[in-house]
């Protein structure tokens, strides 16, 4: 398409708009949702696409999945279940610092696989700060582990990390597809990281018996706040998981519908037995748990990426990439893994993944469409999610942990993190690379 807008080729305008989004995100001068909305408005005003096409470009399945999970988790966290699990785990290792580092890391990895990474660290880091203070331990290795394990765990499932939701929804990869393909490698990555953390930090940690005895007196049951709500939450969560797996495979219910239906059911159950004004208040609070800025960030990005796509620019980029990798499937997969790793380490991985999805889709002309492209998608998932560990600004969870560390008077600076985080990231990517080569590219 060589359309001209005010005498300028449409492609240049689309590129300038996308460039502006990246520049503003990197410069951290504006809220991400606002810039995404400004950019998508410009794309429509300049006529790169009309409103109808813009609405068509919005992946509502992704938005519904995000909104549904945000509501469910928002209600669930009121029950104190997450603190409960962390305290039980701490007691299960008899409050030994070495064991504590391992169980808190593991909990974060598992929670991150099923919850948003930022939500996970917001729930677990305060407990980490409490337990390390009680045991008079330096919180740094624990906080570093929180970052690394949240990003590693998040890679494992469809709902663990936004890039996965984006890819899964756009390409039609299911919850089970993610479990089967990403589950095993992420379990390996978690085990390797547990060993690494134990070797460098865990085995050197020590504390007094007195401090440990104090921690062993904690009563985790007291952390549980609302038993009725807890049971309702578990029922809904079970149904949602069943919906993601069985419902998706046999009834062909999309994940967005499942998550939103789950949120609706939990809100219904939560309000049960209360009068209308209390019901309204509860529903209002539940909707308040949705991070609307994240939702509008996605919404804007979908439109901006579609405007790039409409100008034929992304197909052009796909052509250039396959040219660069000599049309070799393995080389292309490795290029996607490593480029997305380095990209995600420095910029928010969401716009990058959103842009790369149509690029990889149009590589189907070279490599075959549908399932033939799956190895490339797994390369993108692993690069984009694990790459987030590369720097302190690589993922929102990292920024959140750093901000907690700051508030608690144990700041983690960019370089201190980079020196340790980057080698750990490279290690996880090398392992991912071996896995991809052995399983998909041989």
């Amino acid at each position, binding site marked *: 398409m060589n359309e001209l807008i005010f005498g300028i080729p449409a492609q240049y305008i689309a590129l300038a708009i996308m460039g502006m989004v990246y520049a503003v995100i990197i410069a951290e001068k504006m809220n991400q949702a606002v810039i995404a909305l400004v950019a998508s408005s410009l794309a429509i005003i300049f006529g790169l696409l009309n409103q109808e096409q813009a609405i068509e470009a919005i992946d509502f399945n992704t938005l519904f999945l995000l909104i549904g999970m945000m509501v469910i988790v928002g209600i669930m966290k009121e029950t104190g279940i997450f*603190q409960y699990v962390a305290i039980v785990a701490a007691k299960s290792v008899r409050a030994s610092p070495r064991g504590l580092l391992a169980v808190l890391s593991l909990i974060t990895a598992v929670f991150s696989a099923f919850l948003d990474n930022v939500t996970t660290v*917001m729930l677990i880091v305060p*407990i980490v700060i*409490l337990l390390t*203070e*009680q045991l008079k331990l330096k919180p740094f290795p624990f906080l570093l582990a929180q970052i690394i394990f949240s990003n590693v765990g998040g890679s494992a499932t469809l709902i663990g990390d936004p890039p996965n939701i984006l890819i899964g929804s756009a390409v039609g990869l299911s919850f089970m597809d993610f479990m089967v393909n990403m589950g095993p490698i992420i379990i390996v990555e978690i085990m390797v990281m547990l060993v690494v953390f134990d070797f460098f930090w865990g085995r050197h940690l020590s504390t007094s018996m007195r401090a440990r005895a104090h921690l062993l007196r*904690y009563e985790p049951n007291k*952390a549980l706040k609302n038993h009725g709500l807890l049971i309702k939450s578990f029922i809904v969560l079970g149904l949602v998981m069943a919906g993601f797996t069985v419902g998706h495979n046999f009834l062909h219910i999309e994940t967005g519908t499942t998550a939103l239906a789950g949120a609706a059911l939990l809100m219904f159950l939560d309000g049960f037995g209360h009068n209308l004004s209390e019901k309204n208040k509860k529903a209002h609070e539940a909707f308040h748990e949705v991070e609307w800025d994240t939702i509008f960030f996605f919404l804007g990005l979908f439109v901006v990426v579609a405007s790039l796509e409409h100008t034929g620019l992304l197909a052009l980029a796909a052509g250039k990439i396959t040219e660069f990798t000599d049309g070799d499937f393995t080389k292309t997969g490795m290029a996607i893994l490593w480029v997305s790793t380095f990209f995600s380490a420095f910029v928010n991985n969401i716009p990058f993944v959103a842009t790369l999805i149509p690029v990889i889709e149009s590589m189907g002309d070279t490599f075959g469409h549908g399932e033939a492209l799956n190895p490339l998608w797994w390369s993108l998932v692993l690069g984009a999610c694990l790459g987030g560990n590369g720097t302190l600004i690589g993922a929102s969870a990292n920024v959140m942990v750093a901000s*907690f560390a700051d508030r608690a008077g144990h700041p983690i600076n960019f370089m201190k993190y980079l020196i340790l985080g980057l080698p750990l990231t490279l290690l996880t990517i090398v392992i991912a690379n071996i896995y991809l080569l052995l399983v998909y590219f041989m």
Partner: protein
Amino acid sequence: MSCKEALIPTSIHIAPDQTVKEALHLLEENHIRTAPVVNSAGQLVGMFGLHSLMEDLLPMAAQIKDGLTDLDFIVGGAPGAAKKIRKVGPKLVKDHMATDVSEIVLNPETPLLEVIRMLTRHGSPLPVVEEGSMKYVGIVSEQSCLHRLHEILAEVEKEEELEKSQK
């Protein structure tokens, strides 16, 4: 009716580089819970009170923003909190006072009704400073405010009686 009518031009204040222990002693001696912290230039720089001390006794995880919202599950935490009193005693007031005073300061010209609103929202006492220079003038408390209102009521009643007798 403005703030200055209810003002207590108290001279009781704490210097930022006094120790927490000294400051607590001063509060106890004067039977008060909170006192303004004033620097050598006479400007208000913070408020120090039993409330600030209580905050310091909590585990860090409960002090920070978005931190733990309940500590129900911690059994036997009292000795730890008690030991923290010993720890903060020799520290300087400036590191343990509430510094975000811009939200709670009044000035002599603040209308009395706004003073009452501020007292109900932010607690008592509240510091009064000269607008702009932040120069410390005194405090208003719930008591001083009520005292002034009683005086006003007496005046109003006198006027009402006067009106009645004229009819």
